[in-house]
């Protein structure tokens, strides 16, 4: 098996055998399975793609920004926040900085894309036209100090339909009823879309003081105030994730966008913010054909 980000390469032997043999496998729930059959989609197989990444330490100082070992340095967003007191002492944080961690974004994108391409390759090898009910996750693998990207879904074939012209199956996080509604509304799934933004906040003295709470120095006598540097970091992280996904859409629409934010507090007001925006890239293929009005129901709970 060749494993590289540029070229997903061969599938594991067991995967090839699994797709070649008898029964289909499906990770769909039974209601989703039924809804797919109703739409004219037949399951081909449960498909999966993985990528284990080494996730090394990287610049923790504003003077040594960027990862070690040849990682890319700062690019994109970079803003300094000087404190109003000037250089009071060596321990005083007179200078703060927010910056985009491009090397983290690059690593995440490599891991996600590689796993995605492997899943796509599995599905294509089984003659699938699309992959529904995609689930993706990333996280530490046991306590091995590495991060694993996992993407799974159920490959499907359109009954009496044609394979995509470029041979690459379409993909969607949706399945079953939600996919039915999307198609009813006149949209066809193109692919899943995901974008990450990583912003590091290196706090100045004001940010450090305000983020540690008003009780730390003056016994709670200070007034509430907006923490400008933190607001800027959070806003930019979300904006960068949004911009990243817009670039992937190429004129299509994003359906069911979900933004997740993880914040790691590094102490003394220093924070690392990671935003991941996911959604379904969809394309209109027919005018909206209104469905009948919903029927009022009462459940006998």
């Amino acid at each position: 098996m060749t494993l590289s980000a540029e070229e997903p390469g061969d599938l594991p032997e067991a995967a090839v055998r699994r797709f070649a043999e008898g029964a289909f496998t499906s990770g769909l729930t039974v209601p989703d399975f039924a809804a797919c059959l109703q739409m004219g989609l037949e399951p081909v197989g449960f498909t999966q793609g993985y990528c284990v990444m080494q996730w090394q330490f990287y610049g923790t100082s504003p003077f040594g920004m960027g990862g070690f070992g040849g990682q890319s340095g700062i690019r994109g967003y970079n803003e300094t926040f000087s404190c109003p007191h000037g250089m009071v002492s060596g321990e005083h944080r007179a200078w703060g900085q927010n910056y985009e961690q491009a090397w983290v974004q690059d690593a995440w994108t490599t891991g996600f894309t590689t796993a995605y391409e492997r899943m796509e390759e599995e599905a294509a090898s089984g003659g699938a036209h699309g992959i529904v009910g995609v689930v993706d996750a990333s996280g530490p693998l046991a306590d091995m100090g590495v991060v694993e990207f996992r993407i799974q879904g159920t490959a499907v074939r359109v009954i009496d339909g044609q394979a995509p012209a470029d041979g690459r199956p379409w993909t969607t996080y949706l399945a079953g009823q939600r996919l039915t509604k999307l198609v009813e509304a006149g949209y066809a799934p193109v692919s899943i879309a995901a974008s990450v933004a990583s912003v590091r906040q290196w706090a100045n003295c004001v940010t450090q003081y305000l983020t540690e709470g008003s009780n730390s120095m003056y016994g709670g006598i200070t007034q509430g105030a907006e923490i400008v540097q933190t607001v800027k970091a959070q806003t930019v992280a979300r904006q960068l994730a949004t911009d990243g996904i817009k670039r992937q859409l190429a004129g299509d629409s994003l359906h069911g966008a979900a933004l997740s934010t993880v914040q790691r507090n590094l102490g003394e007001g220093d924070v690392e913010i990671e935003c991941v925006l996911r959604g379904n890239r969809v394309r209109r293929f027919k005018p909206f054909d209104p469905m009948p009005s919903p029927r009022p129901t009462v459940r006998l709970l």
Partner: protein
Amino acid sequence: MSDAPEETPQDLPEGASRRLAELENGLFTSDLSVNEFLLIKEVGFHPLGFVMGSSIYHTGIQTRKWGQSQELTKLTEAMYNARELAMTRMEEEALELGADGVVGVRLDVNYYEWGKDAAEFIAVGTAVKAENGVSHRNKLGKPFTSDLSGQDFWTLMQTGHIPQGLVMGTCVYHIAHRGLGATLGSAGQNVELPNFTQALYEARELAMTRMQDEANELGASGIVGVRLEEKSHQWGSHTIEFLSLGTAVVKTSDDVTLPRPTTIISLDN
């Protein structure tokens, strides 16, 4: 439906035989919710009784090479056998009741303080029988098993499929540690670790393939609700069990027209 000879139960505990004998008088036990009970009845099945099987298994040890990714076949066999024993005993209880199948099967592993290297594998579910007297046992003459809920069972029947068995595949795999040279060679970089990726990928595919082999033995046309679970149990982080589970199904009718979905608006609070 099946033409295969129907099996007879063996070695059930005395308490189980007595409990099951009482159930044959008409009283039934079940862990189905009221809604599940309603839907099971709606598709022509009647619950016969709550059935279970258990096996306390010593999983033993197997040596592994520090720097080599490999399947630990002894542990794989142990995990497989233990679950099979629990499932078989549950099926025996269902046979005792004359059931066609078992729905809502749950398969758990429990560890106890008094047995450090032992684990209890337990399978529980509700035995059901077709009310029209037609046998729905699988190709092997055994009651079908399924982890589907009552709602899922009803929905599956509407698609023209019926469960054949809860199928599983397992693979206990040791993921190699990285040597000093490899660690230093990529120090400070965010890069893929192909040895880890390859090992995990291979292990998951093996588990999936074994599950699919079980389904093929049952003559199934597909497996629905596949789940892929991972657990290190008590072996340390580099040894992981990959378990895939799903319900093998067979198509009973091609003449099925699924109803077009109807939009509803709930008037519940």
